[in-house]
């Protein structure tokens, strides 16, 4: 018998000892970060970056498989006793010697998780994690010339890439309201001093919002550069249009922190078949939020329609895709993304 088979047999025996619980239910009390546990992390420090942003240093559990610069992780934190999951880009370099990872969070007004992480969370807190994922990464063959186009907290995935280094010609155009709002300002200027980065720092309070036409003068060779852009919806929509109009859409890579929601319609009564709960929902609230508020266990991921971590069978009724307005009706085997779908009349989900 192989050692893995032996181990799984020993585990089965142990389950007879602990039933109806699992051995891990007891082990988790003692060692939540051990190998084989659900992936968790312990917050070790919180460093203030600006008034409203902080970097969280996390020691991930033994099961952490590492990340590629630019990727994000999902983190589940208990805020007021309620487990909430959000996505955050990894801002630490992949080669960090102590094995810790960092995320950098900007507290948005009324933002439950961001506010908690920036202002309240205490070192020592255990959080829940998912492995890193995401396509917003540099290709294996490093491009000769790179442009990073960022604004606000959109700097985070790019900071991860900058810290990994390895590129010879990097220009960054970054916008923030004022100098003191620029997250990682010191790190950026250190890179500039080392000649590892050409930085265009835009303070929108005084200089106004960046018009992409200005790129011609700010970065004359912008169109030749492989570009990674991350920031508010307005910037990304404009960039996609701008690059497309030059016929070089394939040179632009974007990362969005929220879905671009366009439509809402009438809501309806939503039934969660397995949990046996029925609640009234409007036509604008994603079914993911509706279910979570009702105390239903809803799987989730990016919460913005890209990862398919939230797909759920639609058993009856119809739902509307909030990004396109498209209606999906229940049928055998129909799955919907609850994070970007709202009720379109009464419907039933298998949760």
């Amino acid at each position: 018998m192989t050692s893995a088979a032996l181990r799984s047999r020993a585990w089965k025996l142990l389950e007879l000892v602990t039933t109806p619980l699992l051995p891990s239910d007891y082990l988790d009390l003692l060692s939540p970060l051990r190998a084989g546990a659900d992936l968790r992390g312990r917050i070790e420090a919180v460093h203030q970056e600006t008034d409203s942003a902080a970097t969280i240093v996390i020691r991930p559990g033994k099961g952490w498989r590492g990340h590629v610069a630019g990727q994000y992780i999902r983190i589940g934190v208990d805020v007021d006793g309620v487990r909430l999951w959000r996505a955050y880009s990894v801002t630490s370099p992949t080669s960090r010697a102590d094995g810790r990872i960092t995320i950098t969070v900007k507290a948005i007004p009324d933002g439950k998780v961001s506010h908690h992480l920036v202002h309240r969370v205490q070192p020592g807190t255990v959080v829940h994690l998912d492995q890193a994922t995401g396509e917003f990464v540099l290709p294996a063959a490093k491009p000769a010339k790179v442009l990073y186009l960022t604004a606000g907290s959109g700097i985070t995935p790019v900071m991860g890439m900058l810290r990994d280094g390895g590129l010879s010609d990097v220009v960054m155009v970054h916008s923030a309201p004022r100098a003191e709002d620029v997250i990682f300002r010191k790190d950026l200027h250190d890179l500039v001093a080392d000649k590892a980065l050409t930085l265009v720092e835009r303070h929108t309070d005084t200089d106004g919002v960046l018009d992409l036409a200005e790129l011609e003068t700010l970065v004359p060779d912008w169109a030749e550069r492989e570009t990674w852009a991350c920031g508010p919806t307005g910037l990304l929509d404009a960039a996609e249009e701008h690059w497309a109009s030059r016929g070089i859409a394939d040179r632009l890579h974007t990362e969005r922190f929220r879905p671009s929601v366009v439509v809402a319609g009438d809501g309806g009564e939503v039934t969660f078949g397995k949990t046996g709960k029925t609640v009234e929902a409007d036509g604008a609230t994603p079914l993911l939020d509706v279910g979570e508020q009702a105390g239903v266990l809803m799987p989730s991921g990016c919460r913005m329609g890209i990862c398919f971590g939230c797909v759920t069978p639609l058993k009856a009724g119809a739902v509307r895709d909030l990004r396109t307005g498209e209606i999906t009706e229940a049928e055998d085997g129909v799955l919907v993304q609850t994070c970007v779908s709202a009720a379109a009349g009464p419907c039933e989900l298998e949760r």
Partner: protein
Amino acid sequence: MTAIDPTAHLTDEQIEDLGRELDAIRDEVIASRGEKDAAYIRKVISVQRKLELTSRGILLFSLFPPAWLIGTAGLSVAKILENMEIGHNVLHGQWDWMRDPKIHSTTWEWDHVSPADQWKHSHNELHHTYTNVIGKDNDLGYGIMRVDEDQRWHPMHLGQPLWNFINACFFEYGIAAYDLELGKNLRTKKRRKDPEFRARARAVGRKIRRQVLKDYVVHPLLSGPSFLTTLAATFTANLVRNLWSHSVIMCGHFPEGVAVFERRSIKGETRGQWYLRQMMGSANISGSKVMHIMTGNLSHQIEHHLFPDLPSNRYAEVAVKVKALFEKYELEYVSGSLPKQVFSAWHKVFRLSLPNRKPKVKAPAREKELVAA
């Protein structure tokens, strides 16, 4: 049954006002649920698991009498906590709002021979919906006892003190049996053959097998030379847990002063009337904080029945407000110490094992009043 309807003085309007006031109490708790409550249940779970592990560890040496005593006492307490303050309440969905998949009514399994999903159906859906409705609520006399003067007496009822005692000793099996509705389902061949029933029966069989294997084979075997004494210890702990939970549950709906209802009385019940039935159909146990925790806060049975899905640690504060409403609406809040309520409930079991002594006083049946009220 109380001969005089204790709610007769309330008008329709008052009953609906009462309902609104109770809704407000509920909303207040829901709005303030938070970190402290989450920390409470996690703490109880952690204490319970550590206590169980330690007790079972001590029982490995149960050949040594002090180890047997301490281990058995610890395991009994751990099993009581597991079933009462944790299992029962988690399965009620009291902690679903935390969105922790490890402490959620849809994922929880408990140290009990009735599988969680079957118990949830018969307890949450039937018992809590049809509280104290004769013929609908299996918890009421568990289908084997006479619980109200109005129920026809049968010579079989002479034995009910004994049935009740046996049921108390093997309470978890009793619960599994009525979650399966064995009485009804074994009666006809058609029901016995019903694939749905058979699947459920198989699930119970599997659960019993695992439970028995753990308590009466695996742990005794791990104890080596202490095999027999550990077996006796786990048997004792299960017995203690069964007797305890049976007593607590009897105290919830059986003591004198608690009303039962007839099937037709709940037709077309409003929210206010539903609340009123829960108020009149439940009784509390008074006592210390530890006692409340050991009963899974079912000592606040009235509050639990009004708000089955509020976190159990909040019932004590809710009770103060609920009691004030009982006073305001001039209703009787049935409450007493554990010994008093246990005695009262057993007294009823004995009394009703005999036929009614004198011809029943003809008084307006209260359930008719409830509908008319």
